[in-house]
């Protein structure tokens, strides 16, 4: 990564949300890499950027189309890459033509000069990488935003070589692994479709029961069904939707409605309040296992102390399965990994024995495979191996500021805290540093509303109101305010919107209309 010539950071604030990733990026910057930052907030990286694209939330697609258009108009594209490894280029070209500089400036609020300079820096680099974060995915057009970014990378051929490509920074320690290993309604472990008879047959043979071919419900749909009274029993493992999901009033109603709720967690959370049975969880220090990081690197988690409640989750799930008539016993998590390796090709060569020596990046299909550091070096993951350009249009956010709710709320994280804060709020030193929620508001808006740092303010949307102290800072641009979701005393997600990406179900945490008052 330090060999990058141009780094394009889009919708990601790694110095706060991924501090160690930010160290790699800083190394690249010290070695002279150019930096483009696309972010509505003036982050640490934005302050140091060669070009800061201070776009309006919800205008990602317009931004990307505009950049691609500038590149094509100037002939800065990688013609050889486009010809050999992609298809659908003409349609893309026609689409982005609609996004001339004047229109893009209007939609994004970013000056024409900055757009041209960003396009130049990205396209002229020998090795350029795009790093994006939740500022891309946590929009109702999240999936399309990611596709729009892929268009830009493909047009310039910045893929499939070291120090190029697109890197998505993920929020939680094991987001990757949790997706890889099957707790998804449409796929069995290893992204094998429940609709695929061969995949089902493999698992039926291994597990000795028929596998349903009916796609299950997504978590948000299960909650909707709970509220509608059709869903009767729910087991929630290590998750706190009653603090971290958007539109909390809806979530709370759903959790109240379900007849039987089991929650397994290490602390009492907003969600455990609704439970009928709470099972104690074991922290990462209390069990053996593996996590898979954002670069598909499978690494060991090792037990340092005994589980405080006597059992780790893998033991509890096995015991419950056995009690419910499905006999299941493992002596150690390494046996579960062996079973994973036998059923999931990407993990086929992974075992605790190998992980003892070093971490492995999947795909690692066999015991003698070294793992894979760079993907898509020659072929993309489509039947013909070619990448397909997607034509996309600006749609904006599900909710935009209006007369009644004139400000736009962006939510995110601070470095010192983590998600619902149940862990970091119990670290006294961290609470000494960051004891409470702060609403970041721009100096212009603060002046207009007569708000000073430290004043208690009310942030309200159509769905509810939260109170927190204000922090006047030029990190927020005029019209935008920022809050985290780390504190149980200021449940920011009461305010956030119900709009979601229709493809992934990811909520639009990054944009909702609010009013601010003292």
């Amino acid at each position, binding site marked *: 990564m330090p060999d990058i010539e141009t780094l394009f950071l889009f919708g990601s604030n790694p110095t706060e949300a991924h501090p160690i990733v930010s160290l790699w990026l800083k190394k690249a910057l010290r070695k002279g890499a150019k930096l483009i930052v696309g972010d509505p907030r003036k982050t640490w990286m934005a302050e140091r950027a060669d070009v800061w694209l201070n776009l309006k939330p919800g205008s990602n697609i317009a931004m990307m189309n505009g950049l691609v258009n500038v590149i094509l108009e100037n002939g800065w594209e990688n013609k050889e890459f486009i010809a050999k490894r992609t298809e659908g280029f003409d349609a893309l070209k026609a689409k982005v033509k609609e996004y001339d500089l004047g229109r893009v400036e209007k939609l994004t609020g970013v000056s024409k000069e900055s757009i041209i300079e960003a396009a130049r820096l990205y396209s002229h680099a020998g090795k350029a990488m795009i790093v994006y974060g939740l500022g891309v995915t946590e929009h109702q057009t999240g999936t399309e935003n990611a596709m729009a970014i892929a268009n830009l990378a493909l047009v310039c051929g910045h893929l499939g070589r070291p120090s190029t490509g697109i890197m998505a920074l993920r929020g939680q320690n094991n987001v990757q692994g949790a997706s890889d290993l099957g707790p998804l309604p449409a796929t069995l472990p290893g992204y094998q479709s429940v609709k695929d008879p061969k995949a089902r047959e493999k698992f039926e043979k291994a597990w000795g029961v028929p596998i349903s071919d009916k796609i299950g419900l997504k978590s948000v749909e299960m909650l909707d069904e709970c509220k509608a009274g059709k869903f009767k029993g729910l087991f929630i493992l290590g998750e706190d939707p009653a603090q971290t999901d958007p539109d909390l009033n809806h979530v709370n109603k759903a959790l109240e409605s379900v007849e039987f709720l089991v929650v397994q967690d290490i602390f*009492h959370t907003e969600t455990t309040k609704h439970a009928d049975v709470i099972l104690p969880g074991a922290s990462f220090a209390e069990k053996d296992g593996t996590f898979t990081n954002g670069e598909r690197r499978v690494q060991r988690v090792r037990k340092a102390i005994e589980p405080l409640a006597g059992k780790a989750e893998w033991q509890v799930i*096995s015991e419950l399965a056995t*009690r419910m008539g499905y006999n299941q016993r493992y002596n150690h998590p390494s046996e579960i990994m062996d079973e994973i390796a036998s059923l999931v090709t990407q993990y086929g060569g992974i075992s605790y024995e190998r992980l003892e020596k070093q971490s492995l990046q999947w795909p690692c299909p066999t015991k003698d495979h070294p793992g894979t550091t760079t993907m898509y070096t020659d072929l993309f993951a489509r039947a013909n191996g070619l990448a397909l350009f997607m034509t996309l249009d600006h749609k904006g956010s599900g909710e935009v500021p209006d007369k009644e709710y004139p400000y736009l709320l962006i939510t995110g994280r601070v470095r010192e805290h983590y998600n619902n804060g149940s862990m970091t709020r119990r670290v006294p030193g961290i609470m000494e540093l960051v004891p409470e929620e702060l609403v970041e508001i721009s100096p212009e808006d603060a002046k207009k509303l007569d708000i000073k740092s430290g004043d208690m303010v009310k942030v309200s949307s159509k769905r509810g109101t939260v109170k927190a102290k204000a922090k006047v800072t030029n990190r927020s641009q005029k019209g935008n305010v920022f809050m985290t979701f780390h504190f149980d005393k200021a449940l920011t997600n009461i305010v956030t919107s119900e709009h979601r990406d229709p493809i992934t179900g990811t909520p639009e945490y990054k944009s909702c209309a609010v009013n601010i008052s003292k």
Partner: protein
Amino acid sequence: MSDRKLKVIINGIETLCDRDDTILKVAKKIGVKIPHLCNDKRLEPYGGCRLCIVKVKGVPRPLSACTTPVAENMEVTTDTDEIIRIRKTLVELLLSNHPNDCMRCERTGDCKLQNLSYEYGVDGSRFEGERWNLPIREDNPFITYEPNKCILCGRCVRICNEVVMAGTIDLVGRGFNSMPDTAFRKPRTLDNCEFCGQCVSTCPTGALTDRKARGKGRIYDLKKVKTTCSYCGTGCNFFLNVRNGRVVKVTSDTSAPVNQGNLCVKGRYGYDFIDHPDRIKTPLIKKNGKFVEATWDEALGLIADKFSSLMKKHGNESVGAFSSSRCTNEENFLLSKFVRTVFRSNNVDNCARV
């Protein structure tokens, strides 16, 4: 840069190395130990402590191995009598302004200066010099600073500026009074520090230590367990330091592929939750609106009965599970398996999308 390898001979051992390698790097690769205090592989070579000096054939004066690049057919000797004599003097000079209070020092057993003093058989008695007598600084929750133990290797300052780019500390003052400190010697707060503790992780002596772990055990009291951080998705490795069944400290694993020993404030200092009194330690069953402690047997029995009867009454599709991006791969696999084999549906999802 040419890919051609260079031939270098160190202590009679011939080896091939890259053009931009330093003598220290090559020596380390072939297992020849050269002492040093100011070097950290996370940092640019500095050449400050001079302990890594070696004899290079044809060069009249000793050269520092950490800053000298290799050359074709270079012949290096790491331990001549002259070199050893100089190193001894260097260590003695460092000890002349050091508290030498190893018996009560946090870093005993894990201190590079102490180890060198032992290795070269020297103490602080040869030079009687002026000594610092400054108070211990505990002006923040995480990092304790004992300036008297600082040897001015500059590692903390360099890691803060080169790697973290936080600019929290720099060498302040002149001559004998120069030392690493914050601007205007202000306490560390979020205004000037990220509390990542990289400075602590690189300090070779007891000058910078983890405040929360002080008095909780020294290196030989602690069991080190290498693991992967459970906060964000970066995948940093570190050591949990355990004593009497309690995690008392997190220390860097400089061999970690992702983070090379660097951590953030959460990874390094965010471990207190592990044995926090609020932890749920037994299963709890809600009875008349209140949670009542239960045994595992009671709780799991109730869950099994309840889910079974709900499925019987309302069908398999009426129940489901949320898995967690916070749990291990093995647990996610098992919950996915549980829903498919016990609930016999695909009503399982994780929080990745939220």
